[in-house]
Protein backbone atom coordinates (compact mmCIF):
# COMPACT_ATOMS: atom_id res chain seq x y z
CA UNK A 1 0.00 0.00 0.00
CA UNK A 2 1.17 3.49 -0.82
CA UNK A 3 2.01 5.45 2.29
CA UNK A 4 0.44 8.80 2.86
CA UNK A 5 3.39 10.78 1.50
CA UNK A 6 3.33 8.77 -1.75
CA UNK A 7 -0.42 9.21 -2.12
CA UNK A 8 -0.17 12.93 -1.45
CA UNK A 9 2.71 13.23 -3.90
CA UNK A 10 0.71 11.43 -6.56
CA UNK A 11 -2.32 13.65 -5.92
CA UNK A 12 -0.05 16.71 -6.22
CA UNK A 13 1.36 15.50 -9.55
CA UNK A 14 -2.17 14.89 -10.88
CA UNK A 15 -3.19 18.36 -9.74
CA UNK A 16 -0.27 19.87 -11.70
CA UNK A 17 -1.34 17.96 -14.80
CA UNK A 18 -4.95 19.13 -14.39
CA UNK A 19 -3.73 22.72 -14.03
CA UNK A 20 -1.63 22.25 -17.17
CA UNK A 21 -4.84 21.11 -18.90
CA UNK A 22 -6.32 24.54 -18.22
CA UNK A 23 -7.91 24.19 -14.80
CA UNK A 24 -7.90 26.66 -11.90
CA UNK A 25 -7.18 25.17 -8.48
CA UNK A 26 -9.94 25.19 -5.86
CA UNK A 27 -9.29 24.37 -2.21
CA UNK A 28 -12.54 23.61 -0.40
CA UNK A 29 -12.50 23.30 3.39
CA UNK A 30 -12.25 19.85 4.93
CA UNK A 31 -15.07 20.74 7.30
CA UNK A 32 -18.23 21.23 5.26
CA UNK A 33 -21.64 22.33 6.55
CA UNK A 34 -23.71 19.15 6.90
CA UNK A 35 -26.95 20.75 5.81
CA UNK A 36 -26.28 21.00 2.07
CA UNK A 37 -24.95 17.45 1.95
CA UNK A 38 -27.87 16.08 3.97
CA UNK A 39 -30.33 17.93 1.81
CA UNK A 40 -28.77 16.46 -1.29
CA UNK A 41 -28.12 12.88 -0.24
CA UNK A 42 -30.56 12.34 2.58
CA UNK A 43 -29.99 10.20 5.61
CA UNK A 44 -27.76 7.89 3.60
CA UNK A 45 -24.86 10.33 3.85
CA UNK A 46 -24.80 9.91 7.63
CA UNK A 47 -23.78 6.30 7.10
CA UNK A 48 -20.99 7.35 4.74
CA UNK A 49 -19.60 10.57 6.19
CA UNK A 50 -18.20 11.62 9.54
CA UNK A 51 -20.44 14.11 11.25
CA UNK A 52 -19.21 16.47 13.91
CA UNK A 53 -20.60 19.48 15.70
CA UNK A 54 -19.31 23.02 15.72
CA UNK A 55 -20.59 25.26 18.50
CA UNK A 56 -21.16 28.19 16.13
CA UNK A 57 -21.71 26.61 12.74
CA UNK A 58 -23.80 23.63 13.79
CA UNK A 59 -23.51 20.19 12.27
CA UNK A 60 -20.43 19.76 10.06
CA UNK A 61 -19.11 16.90 7.95
CA UNK A 62 -15.60 15.85 7.07
CA UNK A 63 -15.55 16.38 3.28
CA UNK A 64 -16.88 13.12 1.75
CA UNK A 65 -16.20 14.42 -1.76
CA UNK A 66 -15.13 17.61 -3.55
CA UNK A 67 -17.92 17.89 -6.09
CA UNK A 68 -20.49 19.56 -3.88
CA UNK A 69 -18.18 22.31 -2.50
CA UNK A 70 -16.74 22.89 -6.00
CA UNK A 71 -20.24 23.34 -7.44
CA UNK A 72 -21.17 25.64 -4.55
CA UNK A 73 -18.08 27.74 -5.10
CA UNK A 74 -18.71 27.98 -8.84
CA UNK A 75 -22.36 28.88 -8.37
CA UNK A 76 -21.37 31.61 -5.90
CA UNK A 77 -18.34 33.17 -7.63
CA UNK A 78 -17.56 31.41 -10.88
CA UNK A 79 -17.25 32.88 -14.35
CA UNK A 80 -18.14 30.77 -17.37
CA UNK A 81 -16.83 28.61 -18.83
CA UNK A 82 -14.63 27.22 -16.07
CA UNK A 83 -12.28 24.32 -15.47
CA UNK A 84 -11.41 23.44 -11.88
CA UNK A 85 -8.92 21.06 -10.32
CA UNK A 86 -8.33 19.98 -6.73
CA UNK A 87 -6.36 17.48 -4.70
CA UNK A 88 -6.79 16.42 -1.12
CA UNK A 89 -8.21 13.95 1.32
CA UNK A 90 -11.78 12.77 1.44
CA UNK A 91 -13.24 10.93 4.41
CA UNK A 92 -15.66 8.01 4.31
CA UNK A 93 -17.26 6.32 7.26
CA UNK A 94 -17.25 2.56 6.75
CA UNK A 95 -19.74 0.11 8.16
CA UNK A 96 -18.06 -2.87 6.56
CA UNK A 97 -14.52 -4.17 6.27
CA UNK A 98 -12.62 -4.80 3.05
CA UNK A 99 -9.91 -3.51 0.74
CA UNK A 100 -12.28 -1.03 -0.91
CA UNK A 101 -13.18 0.49 2.44
CA UNK A 102 -10.60 3.20 3.07
CA UNK A 103 -11.62 5.71 5.73
CA UNK A 104 -9.56 8.52 4.27
CA UNK A 105 -7.76 8.76 0.98
CA UNK A 106 -6.41 11.28 -1.52
CA UNK A 107 -8.44 12.33 -4.51
CA UNK A 108 -7.40 14.51 -7.41
CA UNK A 109 -10.20 15.83 -9.57
CA UNK A 110 -11.01 17.86 -12.64
CA UNK A 111 -14.38 19.50 -13.42
CA UNK A 112 -15.68 21.43 -16.45
CA UNK A 113 -18.54 23.94 -16.26
CA UNK A 114 -19.38 24.80 -19.86
CA UNK A 115 -22.65 25.26 -21.77
CA UNK A 116 -21.19 25.34 -25.27
CA UNK A 117 -20.77 21.67 -26.15
CA UNK A 118 -21.53 19.15 -23.37
CA UNK A 119 -20.50 16.09 -25.39
CA UNK A 120 -17.13 17.67 -26.20
CA UNK A 121 -16.65 18.40 -22.48
CA UNK A 122 -17.55 14.77 -21.61
CA UNK A 123 -14.94 13.57 -24.08
CA UNK A 124 -12.35 16.06 -22.81
CA UNK A 125 -12.63 14.75 -19.22
CA UNK A 126 -12.62 11.09 -20.24
CA UNK A 127 -9.69 11.47 -22.63
CA UNK A 128 -7.69 13.44 -20.05
CA UNK A 129 -8.20 10.66 -17.50
CA UNK A 130 -7.51 7.90 -20.05
CA UNK A 131 -4.21 9.61 -20.89
CA UNK A 132 -3.15 9.97 -17.24
CA UNK A 133 -4.02 6.32 -16.54
CA UNK A 134 -2.64 4.93 -19.80
CA UNK A 135 0.33 3.21 -18.13
CA UNK A 136 -1.98 1.01 -16.05
CA UNK A 137 -3.99 -1.95 -17.26
CA UNK A 138 -7.49 -0.76 -16.48
CA UNK A 139 -10.86 -1.44 -18.01
CA UNK A 140 -13.02 1.55 -18.82
CA UNK A 141 -16.81 1.46 -18.63
CA UNK A 142 -19.12 4.25 -19.73
CA UNK A 143 -22.85 4.74 -19.41
CA UNK A 144 -25.44 7.43 -19.81
CA UNK A 145 -28.17 8.02 -17.25
CA UNK A 146 -29.87 10.25 -19.83
CA UNK A 147 -31.05 7.17 -21.75
CA UNK A 148 -33.11 5.70 -18.90
CA UNK A 149 -34.40 9.15 -18.02
CA UNK A 150 -35.49 9.71 -21.62
CA UNK A 151 -37.15 6.28 -21.75
CA UNK A 152 -39.14 7.10 -18.59
CA UNK A 153 -40.06 10.50 -19.92
CA UNK A 154 -41.27 8.96 -23.18
CA UNK A 155 -43.71 6.53 -21.55
CA UNK A 156 -47.30 7.11 -22.63
CA UNK A 157 -48.75 7.39 -19.14
CA UNK A 158 -49.66 9.80 -16.32
CA UNK A 159 -47.07 12.50 -15.56
CA UNK A 160 -47.27 11.50 -11.87
CA UNK A 161 -46.15 7.98 -12.76
CA UNK A 162 -43.26 9.29 -14.84
CA UNK A 163 -42.20 11.61 -12.03
CA UNK A 164 -42.27 8.75 -9.51
CA UNK A 165 -40.19 6.52 -11.80
CA UNK A 166 -37.71 9.31 -12.58
CA UNK A 167 -37.31 9.94 -8.84
CA UNK A 168 -36.30 6.32 -8.32
CA UNK A 169 -33.99 5.72 -11.29
CA UNK A 170 -31.11 5.54 -8.80
CA UNK A 171 -32.97 2.98 -6.65
CA UNK A 172 -33.47 0.04 -9.03
CA UNK A 173 -35.50 -2.07 -6.59
CA UNK A 174 -38.13 0.60 -5.99
CA UNK A 175 -38.07 1.53 -9.68
CA UNK A 176 -38.87 -2.06 -10.70
CA UNK A 177 -41.59 -2.29 -8.08
CA UNK A 178 -43.28 0.88 -9.35
CA UNK A 179 -42.96 -0.24 -12.95
CA UNK A 180 -44.64 -3.54 -12.06
CA UNK A 181 -47.38 -1.67 -10.22
CA UNK A 182 -48.03 0.81 -13.07
CA UNK A 183 -48.15 -1.94 -15.67
CA UNK A 184 -50.63 -4.03 -13.69
CA UNK A 185 -48.15 -6.85 -13.14
CA UNK A 186 -48.65 -6.85 -9.39
CA UNK A 187 -52.07 -7.07 -7.85
CA UNK A 188 -53.51 -3.98 -6.18
CA UNK A 189 -53.14 -4.63 -2.43
CA UNK A 190 -56.37 -4.98 -0.48
CA UNK A 191 -55.58 -1.92 1.62
CA UNK A 192 -55.29 0.21 -1.55
CA UNK A 193 -58.51 -1.23 -3.01
CA UNK A 194 -60.39 -0.57 0.24
CA UNK A 195 -59.03 2.96 0.36
CA UNK A 196 -60.28 3.69 -3.14
CA UNK A 197 -63.79 2.47 -2.28
CA UNK A 198 -63.84 5.21 0.34
CA UNK A 199 -62.83 3.33 3.47
CA UNK A 200 -61.14 5.50 6.07
CA UNK A 201 -59.65 4.76 9.45
CA UNK A 202 -61.65 5.83 12.49
CA UNK A 203 -58.49 6.58 14.44
CA UNK A 204 -58.06 10.07 15.86
CA UNK A 205 -55.93 12.39 13.73
CA UNK A 206 -52.40 12.82 15.10
CA UNK A 207 -49.18 14.28 13.81
CA UNK A 208 -48.02 17.06 11.52
CA UNK A 209 -49.18 15.54 8.23
CA UNK A 210 -52.68 16.90 7.64
CA UNK A 211 -55.92 15.27 6.54
CA UNK A 212 -55.80 17.47 3.41
CA UNK A 213 -52.38 16.07 2.51
CA UNK A 214 -53.80 12.57 2.79
CA UNK A 215 -56.86 13.38 0.68
CA UNK A 216 -54.67 14.97 -2.00
CA UNK A 217 -52.64 11.78 -2.23
CA UNK A 218 -55.80 9.64 -2.34
CA UNK A 219 -57.03 11.73 -5.29
CA UNK A 220 -53.75 10.96 -7.08
CA UNK A 221 -54.15 7.27 -6.28
CA UNK A 222 -57.71 7.33 -7.65
CA UNK A 223 -56.53 8.93 -10.90
CA UNK A 224 -53.77 6.33 -11.07
CA UNK A 225 -56.25 3.48 -10.59
CA UNK A 226 -58.42 4.87 -13.41
CA UNK A 227 -55.50 5.20 -15.84
CA UNK A 228 -54.55 2.53 -18.34
CA UNK A 229 -51.65 0.33 -17.33
CA UNK A 230 -48.28 0.96 -19.00
CA UNK A 231 -48.15 -1.61 -21.85
CA UNK A 232 -46.04 -4.65 -21.00
CA UNK A 233 -43.97 -4.26 -24.18
CA UNK A 234 -42.90 -0.79 -23.01
CA UNK A 235 -41.90 -2.33 -19.67
CA UNK A 236 -39.99 -5.08 -21.44
CA UNK A 237 -38.17 -2.53 -23.62
CA UNK A 238 -37.23 -0.57 -20.48
CA UNK A 239 -35.86 -3.78 -18.95
CA UNK A 240 -33.79 -4.53 -22.06
CA UNK A 241 -32.47 -0.98 -22.07
CA UNK A 242 -31.42 -1.23 -18.42
CA UNK A 243 -29.61 -4.51 -19.11
CA UNK A 244 -27.82 -3.39 -22.29
CA UNK A 245 -24.07 -3.97 -22.15
CA UNK A 246 -21.78 -4.05 -25.16
CA UNK A 247 -18.65 -2.54 -26.66
CA UNK A 248 -19.05 1.24 -26.83
CA UNK A 249 -18.79 1.38 -30.62
CA UNK A 250 -21.74 -1.06 -30.87
CA UNK A 251 -23.92 0.87 -28.42
CA UNK A 252 -25.84 3.21 -30.76
CA UNK A 253 -26.96 0.36 -33.05
CA UNK A 254 -27.85 -1.86 -30.08
CA UNK A 255 -29.88 0.97 -28.53
CA UNK A 256 -31.72 1.69 -31.78
CA UNK A 257 -32.59 -2.01 -32.07
CA UNK A 258 -34.67 -1.61 -28.89
CA UNK A 259 -37.14 0.54 -30.88
CA UNK A 260 -37.76 3.09 -28.12
CA UNK A 261 -38.54 6.27 -30.06
CA UNK A 262 -38.17 8.53 -27.02
CA UNK A 263 -34.49 7.76 -26.55
CA UNK A 264 -33.48 8.78 -30.09
CA UNK A 265 -32.26 12.28 -29.03
CA UNK A 266 -30.25 10.66 -26.20
CA UNK A 267 -28.77 8.15 -28.67
CA UNK A 268 -27.81 11.06 -30.95
CA UNK A 269 -26.01 12.72 -28.01
CA UNK A 270 -24.25 9.44 -27.22
CA UNK A 271 -23.10 9.22 -30.85
CA UNK A 272 -21.83 12.77 -30.72
CA UNK A 273 -19.92 11.94 -27.52
CA UNK A 274 -18.47 8.75 -29.02
CA UNK A 275 -17.36 10.70 -32.10
CA UNK A 276 -15.69 13.27 -29.86
CA UNK A 277 -13.94 10.45 -27.96
CA UNK A 278 -12.75 8.82 -31.20
CA UNK A 279 -11.44 12.19 -32.41
CA UNK A 280 -9.39 12.35 -29.22
CA UNK A 281 -7.88 8.99 -30.04
CA UNK A 282 -9.96 6.76 -27.74
CA UNK A 283 -10.44 3.20 -29.02
CA UNK A 284 -14.20 2.73 -28.60
CA UNK A 285 -14.08 -1.01 -29.18
CA UNK A 286 -11.98 -1.36 -26.02
CA UNK A 287 -14.52 0.46 -23.81
CA UNK A 288 -17.60 -1.20 -22.35
CA UNK A 289 -20.93 0.58 -22.60
CA UNK A 290 -23.33 -0.32 -19.76
CA UNK A 291 -26.73 1.39 -19.80
CA UNK A 292 -27.15 0.93 -16.03
CA UNK A 293 -23.59 1.93 -15.16
CA UNK A 294 -23.49 3.85 -11.92
CA UNK A 295 -27.20 3.44 -11.36
CA UNK A 296 -27.06 2.47 -7.72
CA UNK A 297 -23.69 3.92 -6.75
CA UNK A 298 -23.25 7.29 -8.49
CA UNK A 299 -26.42 9.03 -7.54
CA UNK A 300 -25.96 12.65 -8.56
CA UNK A 301 -24.81 11.83 -12.09
CA UNK A 302 -27.63 12.32 -14.56
CA UNK A 303 -25.92 11.93 -17.96
CA UNK A 304 -22.56 10.53 -19.06
CA UNK A 305 -20.85 8.35 -16.42
CA UNK A 306 -17.51 6.54 -16.49
CA UNK A 307 -15.17 4.43 -14.38
CA UNK A 308 -11.68 3.03 -14.78
CA UNK A 309 -11.21 -0.19 -12.80
CA UNK A 310 -8.36 -2.60 -12.13
CA UNK A 311 -8.77 -6.35 -12.63
CA UNK A 312 -9.06 -7.11 -8.89
CA UNK A 313 -12.81 -6.88 -8.15
CA UNK A 314 -12.11 -6.15 -4.47
CA UNK A 315 -10.62 -2.77 -5.41
CA UNK A 316 -12.70 0.36 -5.83
CA UNK A 317 -12.56 2.16 -9.20
CA UNK A 318 -9.24 3.94 -9.76
CA UNK A 319 -11.14 6.79 -11.37
CA UNK A 320 -14.79 7.69 -11.77
CA UNK A 321 -16.89 10.61 -12.87
CA UNK A 322 -19.73 11.88 -14.93
CA UNK A 323 -22.15 14.64 -15.76
CA UNK A 324 -24.19 16.28 -12.99
CA UNK A 325 -26.27 19.05 -14.54
CA UNK A 326 -29.11 18.55 -12.04
CA UNK A 327 -26.74 19.01 -9.10
CA UNK A 328 -25.81 22.50 -10.30
CA UNK A 329 -29.54 23.26 -10.59
CA UNK A 330 -30.16 22.04 -7.03
CA UNK A 331 -27.25 23.97 -5.55
CA UNK A 332 -27.57 26.96 -7.88
CA UNK A 333 -30.64 28.58 -6.31
CA UNK A 334 -32.37 29.12 -9.62
CA UNK A 335 -29.28 29.04 -11.81
CA UNK A 336 -27.78 26.03 -13.51
CA UNK A 337 -24.93 25.10 -15.76
CA UNK A 338 -23.98 21.84 -17.50
CA UNK A 339 -21.09 20.29 -15.58
CA UNK A 340 -18.95 17.18 -15.91
CA UNK A 341 -15.93 15.93 -14.04
CA UNK A 342 -14.21 13.10 -12.30
CA UNK A 343 -11.74 12.02 -9.65
CA UNK A 344 -8.71 9.73 -9.46
CA UNK A 345 -7.82 7.83 -6.28
CA UNK A 346 -4.21 8.88 -6.06
CA UNK A 347 -3.04 6.25 -3.55
CA UNK A 348 -4.59 3.39 -5.48
CA UNK A 349 -3.00 4.70 -8.67
CA UNK A 350 0.41 4.67 -6.92
CA UNK A 351 -0.15 1.09 -5.74
CA UNK A 352 -1.02 -0.10 -9.22
CA UNK A 353 1.93 1.75 -10.75
CA UNK A 354 4.22 0.04 -8.24
CA UNK A 355 2.84 -3.36 -9.28
CA UNK A 356 2.99 -2.63 -13.01
Amino acid at each position, binding site marked *: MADKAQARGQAGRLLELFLAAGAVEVTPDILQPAEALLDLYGEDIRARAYVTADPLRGEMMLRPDFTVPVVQEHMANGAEPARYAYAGEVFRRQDHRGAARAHEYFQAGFEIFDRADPEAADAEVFALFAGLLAKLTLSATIGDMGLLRAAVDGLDTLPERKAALARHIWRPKRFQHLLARYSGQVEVPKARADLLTGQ*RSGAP*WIGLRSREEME*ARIATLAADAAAAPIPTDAVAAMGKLAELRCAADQAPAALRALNIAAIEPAIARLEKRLDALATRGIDLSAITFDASHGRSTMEYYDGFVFTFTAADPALPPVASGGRYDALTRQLGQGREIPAVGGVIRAGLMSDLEAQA
Partner: protein
Amino acid sequence: MSEAMIKLGVPSKGRLMEKTFDWFAQAGITLKRTGSEREYAGAVEGAEGVQLVLLSAGEIPRELAAGRIHLGVTGSDLVREKLADWESQVADLAPMGFGHADLIIAVPACWSDVDSLEDLDAAAHRFRATHGFRLRIATKYHRLVREFLTREGVADWQLVDSQGATEGTIANLTAEAVADITSSGETLRANHLKILSDGLIHQSQATLFASRAADWSGQESRLAGLAQQLGLPAPTL
Protein backbone atom coordinates in the same frame (compact mmCIF):
# COMPACT_ATOMS: atom_id res chain seq x y z
CA MET B 1 -7.53 -15.83 39.01
CA SER B 2 -4.61 -17.59 37.35
CA GLU B 3 -6.25 -20.13 35.04
CA ALA B 4 -7.80 -18.75 31.82
CA MET B 5 -11.55 -19.20 31.77
CA ILE B 6 -14.24 -18.84 29.13
CA LYS B 7 -16.11 -15.72 30.16
CA LEU B 8 -19.84 -15.92 29.58
CA GLY B 9 -21.71 -12.58 29.63
CA VAL B 10 -25.34 -12.79 30.73
CA PRO B 11 -27.93 -10.03 31.30
CA SER B 12 -27.71 -9.07 34.94
CA LYS B 13 -31.38 -8.85 35.81
CA GLY B 14 -34.99 -9.44 34.99
CA ARG B 15 -36.69 -11.95 32.74
CA LEU B 16 -33.78 -12.10 30.30
CA MET B 17 -31.47 -13.27 33.08
CA GLU B 18 -33.99 -15.80 34.43
CA LYS B 19 -34.75 -17.23 30.97
CA THR B 20 -31.04 -17.45 30.20
CA PHE B 21 -30.46 -19.37 33.43
CA ASP B 22 -33.36 -21.71 32.48
CA TRP B 23 -31.92 -22.25 29.00
CA PHE B 24 -28.51 -23.27 30.33
CA ALA B 25 -30.16 -25.38 33.07
CA GLN B 26 -31.78 -27.54 30.38
CA ALA B 27 -28.27 -28.56 29.35
CA GLY B 28 -27.31 -29.30 32.94
CA ILE B 29 -25.42 -26.06 33.44
CA THR B 30 -26.41 -24.11 36.51
CA LEU B 31 -25.81 -20.36 36.40
CA LYS B 32 -26.55 -18.39 39.50
CA ARG B 33 -26.01 -15.08 41.10
CA THR B 34 -24.01 -15.09 44.27
CA GLY B 35 -23.77 -12.64 47.08
CA SER B 36 -26.40 -10.06 47.79
CA GLU B 37 -29.29 -9.05 45.53
CA ARG B 38 -27.38 -5.92 44.46
CA GLU B 39 -24.03 -7.57 43.78
CA TYR B 40 -23.35 -8.61 40.19
CA ALA B 41 -21.33 -11.73 40.89
CA GLY B 42 -22.13 -15.20 39.62
CA ALA B 43 -21.16 -18.83 39.67
CA VAL B 44 -21.30 -21.72 37.17
CA GLU B 45 -21.84 -25.37 38.02
CA GLY B 46 -21.88 -28.22 35.53
CA ALA B 47 -19.40 -26.77 33.03
CA GLU B 48 -15.64 -26.73 33.47
CA GLY B 49 -13.73 -23.48 33.18
CA VAL B 50 -16.65 -21.18 32.50
CA GLN B 51 -16.92 -17.92 34.38
CA LEU B 52 -20.21 -16.03 34.63
CA VAL B 53 -20.06 -12.27 34.00
CA LEU B 54 -23.28 -10.38 34.71
CA LEU B 55 -23.72 -7.31 32.51
CA SER B 56 -26.40 -5.02 31.20
CA ALA B 57 -27.86 -6.61 28.03
CA GLY B 58 -27.08 -3.39 26.16
CA GLU B 59 -23.37 -3.62 27.01
CA ILE B 60 -22.94 -7.23 25.95
CA PRO B 61 -22.49 -6.50 22.20
CA ARG B 62 -19.69 -4.04 22.98
CA GLU B 63 -17.97 -6.44 25.40
CA LEU B 64 -18.14 -9.22 22.78
CA ALA B 65 -16.71 -6.93 20.10
CA ALA B 66 -13.85 -5.92 22.41
CA GLY B 67 -13.17 -9.57 23.26
CA ARG B 68 -13.50 -8.94 27.00
CA ILE B 69 -16.04 -11.78 27.16
CA HIS B 70 -15.89 -14.95 25.05
CA LEU B 71 -19.59 -15.72 24.97
CA GLY B 72 -22.59 -13.49 25.52
CA VAL B 73 -26.36 -13.61 25.62
CA THR B 74 -28.20 -10.60 24.24
CA GLY B 75 -30.91 -9.62 21.78
CA SER B 76 -30.06 -10.18 18.12
CA ASP B 77 -31.39 -6.65 17.46
CA LEU B 78 -28.79 -5.10 19.78
CA VAL B 79 -25.90 -6.93 18.13
CA ARG B 80 -27.03 -5.89 14.64
CA GLU B 81 -27.60 -2.31 15.73
CA LYS B 82 -24.49 -1.74 17.82
CA LEU B 83 -21.85 -3.68 15.88
CA ALA B 84 -20.79 -2.59 12.41
CA ASP B 85 -20.41 -5.60 10.14
CA TRP B 86 -21.60 -7.71 13.07
CA GLU B 87 -20.92 -11.09 11.51
CA SER B 88 -17.24 -10.25 11.27
CA GLN B 89 -17.14 -9.45 15.00
CA VAL B 90 -19.30 -12.18 16.55
CA ALA B 91 -20.60 -15.63 15.62
CA ASP B 92 -24.29 -16.40 16.08
CA LEU B 93 -24.23 -19.71 18.02
CA ALA B 94 -27.86 -20.30 18.92
CA PRO B 95 -31.21 -18.55 18.96
CA MET B 96 -32.56 -19.17 22.46
CA GLY B 97 -36.30 -19.04 21.89
CA PHE B 98 -37.20 -16.19 24.23
CA GLY B 99 -37.00 -12.42 24.39
CA HIS B 100 -38.91 -12.18 21.12
CA ALA B 101 -39.50 -8.66 19.80
CA ASP B 102 -40.05 -7.23 16.34
CA LEU B 103 -38.40 -4.06 15.10
CA ILE B 104 -41.07 -2.47 12.92
CA ILE B 105 -42.00 0.78 11.22
CA ALA B 106 -45.29 2.32 12.36
CA VAL B 107 -47.24 5.36 11.19
CA PRO B 108 -50.39 7.08 12.49
CA ALA B 109 -53.40 4.76 12.18
CA CYS B 110 -55.33 7.73 10.74
CA TRP B 111 -53.14 7.64 7.62
CA SER B 112 -55.61 5.55 5.62
CA ASP B 113 -53.52 5.98 2.47
CA VAL B 114 -50.36 4.49 3.96
CA ASP B 115 -50.21 0.72 4.34
CA SER B 116 -46.84 -0.23 2.82
CA LEU B 117 -43.31 1.04 2.24
CA GLU B 118 -44.41 2.07 -1.26
CA ASP B 119 -47.04 4.32 0.38
CA LEU B 120 -44.57 5.61 2.97
CA ASP B 121 -42.13 6.57 0.21
CA ALA B 122 -44.80 8.40 -1.79
CA ALA B 123 -46.14 10.15 1.32
CA ALA B 124 -42.61 11.14 2.33
CA HIS B 125 -42.00 12.69 -1.08
CA ARG B 126 -45.16 14.81 -0.83
CA PHE B 127 -44.46 15.62 2.81
CA ARG B 128 -41.05 17.00 1.92
CA ALA B 129 -42.51 19.13 -0.87
CA THR B 130 -45.22 20.48 1.46
CA HIS B 131 -43.25 21.02 4.66
CA GLY B 132 -39.76 21.66 3.31
CA PHE B 133 -38.06 18.88 5.25
CA ARG B 134 -37.83 15.12 5.03
CA LEU B 135 -40.37 12.95 6.81
CA ARG B 136 -39.02 12.26 10.29
CA ILE B 137 -38.77 8.73 11.68
CA ALA B 138 -38.09 8.51 15.42
CA THR B 139 -35.96 5.57 16.53
CA LYS B 140 -33.00 4.42 18.55
CA TYR B 141 -32.13 1.74 15.95
CA HIS B 142 -30.34 4.04 13.51
CA ARG B 143 -28.20 1.49 11.71
CA LEU B 144 -30.93 -1.13 11.24
CA VAL B 145 -33.57 1.36 10.09
CA ARG B 146 -31.20 3.18 7.73
CA GLU B 147 -29.97 -0.05 6.14
CA PHE B 148 -33.52 -1.36 5.77
CA LEU B 149 -34.98 1.76 4.15
CA THR B 150 -31.97 2.16 1.87
CA ARG B 151 -32.19 -1.48 0.78
CA GLU B 152 -35.93 -1.11 0.12
CA GLY B 153 -35.41 2.04 -1.93
CA VAL B 154 -37.43 4.42 0.25
CA ALA B 155 -36.44 8.11 -0.08
CA ASP B 156 -37.13 11.51 1.50
CA TRP B 157 -36.96 10.43 5.17
CA GLN B 158 -34.67 11.35 8.03
CA LEU B 159 -34.04 9.74 11.37
CA VAL B 160 -34.56 11.59 14.62
CA ASP B 161 -33.07 10.06 17.71
CA SER B 162 -35.48 8.82 20.33
CA GLN B 163 -34.16 6.83 23.29
CA GLY B 164 -37.52 6.35 24.98
CA ALA B 165 -41.28 7.00 24.74
CA THR B 166 -40.79 6.81 20.98
CA GLU B 167 -44.47 6.16 20.29
CA GLY B 168 -45.30 9.59 21.70
CA THR B 169 -43.13 11.54 19.28
CA ILE B 170 -45.79 11.72 16.55
CA ALA B 171 -48.47 13.27 18.77
CA ASN B 172 -45.77 15.62 20.06
CA LEU B 173 -45.01 16.69 16.45
CA THR B 174 -41.34 15.73 16.63
CA ALA B 175 -41.70 12.84 14.14
CA GLU B 176 -44.13 11.55 11.53
CA ALA B 177 -43.33 7.84 11.90
CA VAL B 178 -41.52 5.58 14.36
CA ALA B 179 -39.28 2.53 14.13
CA ASP B 180 -39.35 0.64 17.39
CA ILE B 181 -39.44 -2.73 19.10
CA THR B 182 -42.83 -4.24 19.79
CA SER B 183 -43.93 -7.61 21.08
CA SER B 184 -47.70 -7.33 21.47
CA GLY B 185 -48.34 -4.08 19.62
CA GLU B 186 -50.37 -2.73 22.55
CA THR B 187 -48.31 0.41 23.06
CA LEU B 188 -48.58 1.18 19.37
CA ARG B 189 -52.36 0.83 19.41
CA ALA B 190 -52.67 2.92 22.55
CA ASN B 191 -50.78 5.69 20.73
CA HIS B 192 -52.98 5.39 17.61
CA LEU B 193 -50.25 3.91 15.45
CA LYS B 194 -50.29 1.02 12.98
CA ILE B 195 -47.50 -1.20 11.63
CA LEU B 196 -46.76 -1.06 7.90
CA SER B 197 -47.71 -4.35 6.21
CA ASP B 198 -44.14 -4.77 4.93
CA GLY B 199 -42.48 -2.77 7.70
CA LEU B 200 -40.87 -5.63 9.63
CA ILE B 201 -37.16 -4.77 9.90
CA HIS B 202 -35.91 -7.53 12.19
CA GLN B 203 -37.37 -10.31 14.33
CA SER B 204 -35.24 -10.25 17.41
CA GLN B 205 -34.75 -12.87 20.10
CA ALA B 206 -32.23 -13.61 22.80
CA THR B 207 -29.23 -15.25 21.15
CA LEU B 208 -25.98 -16.82 22.30
CA PHE B 209 -23.07 -15.13 20.54
CA ALA B 210 -19.34 -15.90 20.52
CA SER B 211 -16.73 -13.19 20.23
CA ARG B 212 -14.27 -13.43 17.34
CA ALA B 213 -11.95 -10.93 19.05
CA ALA B 214 -11.61 -12.79 22.36
CA ASP B 215 -8.49 -14.80 23.18
CA TRP B 216 -9.55 -18.39 22.54
CA SER B 217 -6.03 -19.84 22.67
CA GLY B 218 -6.03 -22.94 24.83
CA GLN B 219 -9.83 -22.81 25.08
CA GLU B 220 -10.67 -24.60 21.82
CA SER B 221 -11.42 -28.02 23.29
CA ARG B 222 -13.30 -26.45 26.18
CA LEU B 223 -15.47 -24.48 23.74
CA ALA B 224 -16.11 -27.60 21.64
CA GLY B 225 -17.11 -29.48 24.80
CA LEU B 226 -19.42 -26.70 25.90
CA ALA B 227 -21.04 -26.57 22.46
CA GLN B 228 -21.60 -30.31 22.57
CA GLN B 229 -23.13 -30.05 26.02
CA LEU B 230 -25.51 -27.37 24.69
CA GLY B 231 -26.35 -29.51 21.64
CA LEU B 232 -24.75 -27.05 19.23
CA PRO B 233 -22.37 -27.65 16.31
CA ALA B 234 -18.75 -26.78 17.08
CA PRO B 235 -18.38 -23.06 16.27
CA THR B 236 -15.77 -21.79 13.85
CA LEU B 237 -14.37 -18.47 15.01
